[in-house]
């Protein structure tokens, strides 16, 4: 599991790679939350392009970050999910809350 966060003048992107499951979601959560709280970006895009596996733990991760971004006055979006991960996201109805591109 790898995470690389870049902040470009308030529009940030967090590139994740590897697998998202319950075991490693906590670590991701801590790292992304620390960034949101300290950098206060207007927009945060979570790029799932490098994710090879995701179960419902990823849904919890995205919903939680979306909530935190809202509380901080910002907005979250999700980028590049593989077709199979898109199915997991769709099952949760997450596209009603978060924009997926």
């Amino acid at each position, binding site marked *: 599991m790898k995470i690389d966060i870049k902040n470009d003048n308030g529009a940030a992107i967090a590139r994740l790679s590897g*697998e998202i*499951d*319950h*075991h490693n*979601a*906590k670590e991701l*959560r801590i790292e992304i939350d620390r960034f949101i709280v300290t950098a206060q970006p207007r927009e945060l895009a979570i790029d799932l392009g490098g994710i090879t*596996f995701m*179960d*419902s*733990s990823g*849904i*919890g*991760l995205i*919903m*939680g970050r979306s909530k935190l971004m809202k509380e901080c006055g910002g907005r979250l979006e999700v980028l590049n999910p593989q077709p*199979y991960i898109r199915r*997991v996201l769709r*099952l*949760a109805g997450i596209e009603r809350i978060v924009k997926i591109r």
Partner: protein
Amino acid sequence: MEILNEIKFTMPSLSVNEGAARAVVSSFLIQADPTVEELSDIRTAVSEAVTNAVVHGYRHKKGNIELTVRLLPDRVIYIRVKDKGCGIENVEQAMEPLFTTAPEEERSGLGFSVMQSFMDKLKVKSAPDKGTTVTMRKRLSAHGD
């Protein structure tokens, strides 16, 4: 029913074993030549069931999780995830989408929905203090025959 091949193993309820369970299941299923999508579906369902055992079944005390994977005739894959943890008081309620008893861990309450949606059949047997057994089946397409 005739069992063409079977793998059965036991692992302690450590969260790192969620990934290990997926890896073992994937390796075993290669012989059945599933499509990428079928393999993803099964890996995800296994991950959900094992995570449930780790997070809920053995919430209070660690224990063992037994995972069985069978290759049955007609390209049917059988998966059983069994724990001897605290069990589920109300299985019907636990299976409702978005129901969770662990919101503090950001559990989305979608584990059973994922299993139901990605597999053909799902059965959950559970009783308080007796543990939980999840059995799932999925028939693979004729791809590779």
